[in-house]
Structure formats: structure tokens, C-alpha cells
């Protein structure tokens, strides 16, 4: 009897040693599968034009707003391209910002300054830096690419009454400002509902919530876009709200609308 129970114990240990990594392996695979599905559900929208309002708030209650128009072009083999034109504040109105996001290499960015009528290239190492002094970093604004992260599935959960997947994603780029992100993705449409960002020392930094998702039908496929995103910085108490005022797809944009010359033309 004693012998049998000891044998059981050995088996149990062996099973645990084998099963541990297997479970981890599964979590990584499951995470990757979800990420791939998320990307797949969102491909095929081709191009869009949106007008947006960004509202910055600090812990003193001060507010600042920025109006902008964003044209986006989906790229099949690479990250997306985006052209942003600022309409306010007045002193930077007409400033245009062009970015090519890449899956594996550093993003490329240019800015057009109307006051001196010149296009300047922006350092590529700034992806962790704030976009327009908001709580959004450049890397939060660029398109989602599966290769940018490694994944770890955490659990299934409920978020605002809907079933979601909760998983971790770790940035691959050494210049990222984050050690990891935790994302809540709904199971029905694979839309990101919430993201928690952790800084390089592993502390909670910011929370991003996506709200007011609206669907757009393009070639018979449903694409969901959040009309309100809210980023809150837990460390400084500052926040940024990004509201979409209008969003149109199928605007007939192509790559020629996203180069340095188009940057000069943008108004």
C-alpha cells in the first residue's frame, strides 16, 4: 500500500513537470491565435478618413483640445500608413504628420511645418514618447501588427457583460516604453475593449478604454471602430480623451496620397 502511494506521488510529480510547460506553451499559442484572429477580423478595410478631437486633462483640471483629420491606408504586407493634419490649436494648424508603421523595423515619421514650409524627418526612437503631449504614445497610435508582440493568454472573463479573452502582450521592440500590456478582447468580434499598460519597471502606468464601437460594412465585411477612447495615466493623474467626430471608409486613397509630397499638399 505504502509502495503504491509512493509510486503515485512519483507519477504525480512527473505529470506536473511535464504539464507545467505544456500549459505555458498552450497559453502562448492560444494568445497568438487570438492575436491573429484579431488582425484577420480587421483586415480588408483598405482606407479611411476620420476627423477627431483630442482632449488633454491634467490633475489640476486644466483642459486642452486638439482637432485633427486622420487619413489611413491599410498595407497588406506591412504596417499601415497614416497622415494626420492638425486643425487646432491655431498656432500649429496646417501641421501635417505622416507615419509608416512597420511590423519589425522602426517606424518612419515625417512632419510638415507650414510656418517654414519644410518637411522634417522625426527620430525613430521616440515611439515611447507622447503624441502631441497627450497620454497616447506614438506606439499606442500605430496599427496593430501580430509580430510586434509575444503573447500569453491569461483567462476568459466578462467585461461590461460580454465574454472576453484577457491576455498579456509583450512588445518586441527594445525602444518600446512598456514592459507589457494586458488586453481585454471581446469574444464576439475580437474588438479590444480595454488595455492596461505597464512601464519598463513593471508598474501599472496607464489604462486605455475603448467605447462606443460602431460597425462599418465594407464589401460585406463588418469593421468595428471605437468612437471614443479614454487613456488615463495612473502615475500622473493626467488623461486624454480621443473622440471620433466622423469616419468614412472607401475614400479612394492610395500610396501616392501618403508620401512626402502629399505631406506638403495636405491642408
Amino acid at each position, binding site marked *: 500500500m505504502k509502495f503504491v502511494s509512493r509510486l503515485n506521488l512519483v507519477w504525480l510529480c512527473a505529470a506536473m513537470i511535464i504539464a507545467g510547460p505544456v500549459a505555458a506553451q498552450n497559453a502562448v499559442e492560444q494568445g497568438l491565435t487570438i492575436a491573429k484572429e484579431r488582425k484577420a477580423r480587421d483586415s480588408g478595410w483598405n482606407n479611411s478618413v476620420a476627423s477627431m478631437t483630442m482632449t488633454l486633462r491634467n490633475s489640476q483640471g486644466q*483642459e486642452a483640445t486638439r482637432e485633427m483629420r486622420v487619413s489611413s491606408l491599410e498595407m497588406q504586407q506591412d504596417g499601415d500608413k497614416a497622415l494626420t493634419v492638425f486643425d487646432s490649436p491655431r498656432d500649429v494648424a496646417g501641421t501635417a504628420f505622416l507615419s509608416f508603421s512597420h511590423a519589425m523595423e522602426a517606424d518612419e515619421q515625417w512632419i510638415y511645418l507650414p510656418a517654414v514650409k519644410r518637411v522634417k524627418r522625426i527620430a525613430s526612437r521616440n*515611439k515611447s514618447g507622447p503624441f502631441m503631449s497627450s497620454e497616447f504614445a506614438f506606439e499606442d497610435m500605430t496599427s496593430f501588427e501580430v509580430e510586434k508582440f509575444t503573447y500569453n493568454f491569461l483567462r476568459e472573463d466578462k467585461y461590461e457583460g460580454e465574454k472576453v479573452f484577457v491576455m498579456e502582450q509583450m512588445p518586441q521592440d527594445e525602444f518600446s516604453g512598456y514592459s507589457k500590456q494586458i488586453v481585454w478582447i471581446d469574444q464576439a468580434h475580437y474588438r479590444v475593449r480595454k488595455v492596461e499598460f505597464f512601464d519598463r519597471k513593471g508598474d501599472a502606468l496607464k489604462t486605455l478604454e475603448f467605447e462606443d464601437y460602431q460597425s462599418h460594412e465594407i464589401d460585406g465585411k463588418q469593421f468595428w471602430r471605437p468612437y471614443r477612447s479614454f487613456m488615463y495615466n495612473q502615475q500622473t493623474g493626467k488623461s486624454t480623451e480621443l473622440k471620433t467626430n466622423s469616419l468614412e471608409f472607401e475614400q479612394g486613397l492610395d500610396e501616392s496620397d501618403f508620401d512626402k509630397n502629399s505631406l506638403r499638399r495636405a491642408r
Partner: protein
Amino acid sequence: MQKLPGWMKWCLHSPKFAILLFIALCAVTATGASQLYFRGDYKVFFEPDNPQRKAFEDMQNIFNKSENVSFLVVPAAPTVYQSDTFRLIHELTEDAWQLPLSTRVESISNYQHTYAEADDLVVTDLITSGQYGRPHIQWVREVVQSTPEIDGRLVSRNGEVAVINATIQLPDGDQTKEVIEIADYARQLQDKYQQQFPDHAIYLTGMVIMNDAFAVAAQDDAQTLIPAMFVVITIMIALLTRSIVAALATLVIVASCIAVTMGLAGWAGLFLSTATVNVPTMVMTLAVADCIHVIVSFRQFARQGMAKHEALAESLKVNTKPIVITSVTTAIGFLMLNFSAVPILADLGNMTAVGVMLACLFSLTVLPAMLNLAPLRVPGAPKHNASRYHKAGEWVCQRHRRILPVSLLVVAVSLVFSANNELNDIAVKYFGESSTFRQAVNVQEDTMGGMSNIDFVIYTDQEYGVNDPTVLHQVDELTNWLNQQPEVHHVTSFSDTIKRLNMNMNNDDPDYYRIPENKEIASQYLLLYEMSLPYGLDLNNQIDINKSAVRIVAVLDNLGSNEFTAFESRARTWFAGVAPDLRMEAASPPLMFAHIGARNMQSMVWGTILALVLISGLIIIALRSWRLGLVSLLTNLIPAGIGFGVWGMFSGQINMALSVVLSMTMGIIVDDTVHFLAKYQLARQQGQSVRDAIIYTFTTVGQALVTTTLVLAAGFGILTLSSFRLNSDMGALTVIIIVAALVVDLLFLPAFLMWLDKDKSQSRGTQNEIRE
């Protein structure tokens, strides 16, 4: 002598019940002590509505916080421009991001240097991994020397020290736990790099380290001063009673006073701080004095052949009135600390006042009950003490004509020297030279020149207003003006950044190192620059989110309070002349400390005046004599005058703790006067001559006065051992004043009475003069 009140008799007659009641009371109240917590941050020195604190907190909400940890890297070689040091700076900068709650790390390694290349604006770290070679070092040196934003801030002007500065975002409210955690992590980094780079010394400074040093100072005081005080009590009791039972009884009273006081403080929701951590020492001192009065008289009566019970009752009869008067006046003095502008000093006053009254109650009830129960032997001792005081009295009376002018001279000289005193609240100088924090501050002072900053914020109240060339020129003028002031070591200003950007955008042409022509250009250059900065190195610490306000940081010598606030108003006046329509605010922790000293002194003057009025009223009522009441006013004021005179002679530095010493010692000074005048009055009423009355007073209260002064001087003397100057200075000045009070009461007061009363007695006779 009046009869004992019934409840005091009850304690003496039913000692067991009294002690049981006492134990129950202690048990219930003392549990409150478990609710006490410790706060080590510097904000405990300021009321929440303190104007400088508010200005600073508003500024912190608009801009990023400026609480920081600074690593000072001092290479053995005379310069930081060498390969090893570069590697150290680069690696330590990377590691400093791991400091808990850090939001920003700055050093010459990650400084975002900008230059023009072809038609691009290059924004890059000054030192990236592996860039430790000679040509690169030379390039960095040239960049640093031409960049006012870093020269003198991240590297000393002579290049012998480099600074790695981490900005910390502390939570609101009690931050002690976080502060200790951050400081511990910083020390780990310090140790690690000190070992890896033995040719370098690394020092830690900054606000967070200072907060930690406050906590460490309080802990040190608790660990060294409290044991020291118990040693002193034991010695005092051994010398004064020569009885183990008496010593044990006194210790029980002392311990219970402390426990109940701290317990009540806990129930009241108070917390411990660098100031209130010394409440036990003070309560102990006053409790011992009370107990010794009761025990010494009891033994005197017992020696005269009275039964134990009788001797105790007799001792209570003679001691109740003086102990109550002393306790009440001392408590009033401590309660006057509520007028202090510094909340923790008010807490200290309230807690000690409660402790003093408890000591009074316990020494008059529980102590006799315990002595009554305990087995006591009464040794017969020779009585040469009394004759010694008798002789002293005669000596004073014989020489009163000489003593009086000498005393007046001493008072005059003291008043002259007390003018030497200068308000000086420099928080970093509260720490003694032995503290590691102070040593780091000294190194910083020697190499970088001071660490006191004033943050000037210019509000334009307009979106993108800071990019207006008019405003930029005014900011630039302010920057230049600040740089020209002899006490200023470094100025961080946005005007330098925008001038550099203008130059970069024009192919690094030095002619363009100037403010851009118009607002659009400035705004767009700034946008481009901001879009190029990585995480944690943005301009939010200099410009608000609306671009309507700009913060300019000036680093000054560690000046005294008056010079510091004078500099502030000089800058305000100058700027109002240059830019009358712009609103400018100045704020910083050193400025908060500079203002608090003056505010505290002001409010304490009122507190002291009120204390004087109350106490004089009490004395007049207790002695039932206007004349002696007014005499007591004089003897109450002179010791304080002498105390501050002596202080002016040897130190002259007045900090916020010293401005409260006057209120605090008031009660103790009064005690001496009251004892003296009460006995003198008694003798005069019995028809004795002035001279005989004075000698009688010497023989009856001389010993008690000397004893209490010795006990109190020893107790407060312990505080002088503190390495924290607020406490050690408070202890030293208190000792000086109470010793001065004793000398005044034993020399000046009798001489003065001889002069005052003799004149009158010759003209109108003695008896009529004393009013009842």
C-alpha cells in the same frame, strides 16, 4: 496648610483600589498607541492651507512633480570625461528607471541632444551603450559646454561631478512607506555601482532622500535618546532618593504617563513625526520632577519620625499646590504651541501638555498609593544641605548691591547679542554633519554649489501663450537676469531650448541662436521637438498642457530664510518691472521652509504674549499680590532674554523649533519664580525682614529648585545628543534658558527684592506693603 481633598485621601487610604483603577485606565488608553503611525515626509511641517505649500502643490499639479532622487557621481580622477565614468553614468541612468514610482530619469547620458543633419532635426541620447571612446567623450564635452540646459545641472561646471536625477511621482497623503522603499532601492543601486566602479564615489541627495533622512533621524532619536533618557532617570533617582522602591515607583509613573499620553494621541488620530517622537522624553522629564518632589518631602518627614502614612499625607500637603501650579503653567506653555504655524509642533505641544497633566495627577495619587503599599526603609541622613543653602542666601544678601548692577549688565549684553540671531530654516541643514544625507549635501554644495531651488512659473493665461515672441523674450530676460545674480548657480529655462531649436532648424547656424520671429514658427518647432522626445523626457515639467504657462527652475546657494525670501521678492519686483502684464508665481520646498520660519516666529510671539498674560494672571491669583505678580513677569522674561543672548553669542541660527522654545520653557521658568516668591511672601507675612525672608526662602526651596533644574536640564540635555538639529537646538536652548532661570531666581531676584522692598520698608514700614 490646607487639608488634602477627599479623593487624594481616598487614594492614600485605599491604595489597592486606586492602583487597580489606575491599571485599568492605563490598559484602556494605552491600546490607542497601536493606532499611531509615523510620517517622515517634509509636508508634516506645513498646514494644508499654508500659502507656499498650496502654491507649490498647484504648480506640481500643472507641471510634473519635482520630488526627486539624485545620484552624484564623483570620480577619483578630477574629471567625469573618461571612459569608466561614461559607462557608469550610462548604466546607472538605465537602472535608475527601475526606482519605484520613478517617472523620469535625466543625465548627460540620455539628454536629448539636437542638431541639424542635412535637412533633418536629429534628436539623440548623448551617450548610448558602448559610446565610451575618446573621440565621443571629447564630442560630449563640447556639447555640454555649449548647452546651458545641462552645464551646471547634470555635470558640474568644472566637470568633476555628474548627476543622475530621477523624478519620482509620490502618492498624495502619507508617503513614508514609499519613501523608505525608494530610498532603499537607491542605496542598493549606490552600493552596486560603488562596488563595480571603485574609483568613483556615489552620493544620494534629493527630496525623497531628504524625506527618508527625516524618517531615519526620528528613528535614530527613538533608538538612542529614549535609552539615554532611561539611563539618566535611573541615575537621577539613584542620586536623589537612594531607594530602589522609590526608583521603581517613579519608573512606573513615568512609563504610565508616556503610555497613556501616546495612547490618547493614537485615539485622537495623531501621528508620529520627527518632532512628536520626542514627546516621551519631555513627558518623562516633567514626570520625574513631580515624583522627586513628592518622594524627597516624604523622606524628610519620615526622617523627622512620622509614620509612613502620615509622612505621605504631609508631603502631599506641602507639594500639591506647587506641583499643580507648575504643571498647569507648563501645560499652558506647551499648549501655546498651537499658535505655531507648524502643525507637528502644535501636536508636540498638545501631547506634552496632556502628559504633564497626567504626570501631575499620577504623582499625587498613584505614586503615594504605591509608596504606601511598598515596604520602605527610611535611612537617617545628615542635614548639611539646608545649611549650605542658608549660607548661599546670606552670601547673596551681603552682595546684593554688586549683584544687581552685574545682573543688569548681563541682561544688557544678552540683549545686544540676541540681535545676532537670524532666522534660518534650511531643511538640509537640520541634519547633523554625521548624517550621510548631510555629507551628500555638502559634496553637492562644494561641487555644484547649493541645491536650493526656486521654481518660477509664468502664466500667460492664453493657449500657446508661451510661444509668443514677446513672452519668450521676457522669459529670456528673466533667465539672463537670474544667471547674473551671484547666488544663482543654474537656470533651466525653456527660452534656451527654443533658441537652440531655432539654431538647429537653420542648419546649426549660431546666428540663429535666438528667439524665433513669430509665434507660429516657435509653436511648430516646439511641436516637432516634442514629437521627437521619448517616454519620460517630455517637456511637461517645463510647459503645461495648454502651452500657456512655463516653469523656470533656478538653483541657488543654500541661503538663510531671510536672504532666500529676499531673493524671491527681488525677482518678483524685477519681473513685474519687465513684464507688468504677466503673472508670475514662485514656489519650491526650500521656499516653503524659508517662509515657515518667519511665519512661525510671528505666530509664536502672539502665543508667548498670551501665555505670559495667562501665567501672570495665574501667579497674581496664586500669590494674591499684584506687586509680586509684576516682579514675576520680570524674572520670567529675563531668562529668555539671556537664553537668546547666549544663543546669539555661540550660534545665532534660529530655526522653527527654536521659535517655540520660549513658549515651551515659560511654564518651567515660572515654576522657579512661583516657588521662590511664594516662600518669600510667607516669610514676610510672618513678619520677617527682607533679608531673613530671603534666607528662609533659600533654605526651604533652594534644594527643590536646584533639583528640578538639574533633572530638567539633564532631560532636555539628552535632546542635544540628537543628530537632528531641530531637536538638538531645541534641547540646547531649553537647557540654557532653564539654567538661566535658576541663576536669575537665586541671584537677581533676591538682590532685586532687597532693593525694592528695603526702599519701601524704610519709608513706610514692611507689613502694610504686602497686600493680601
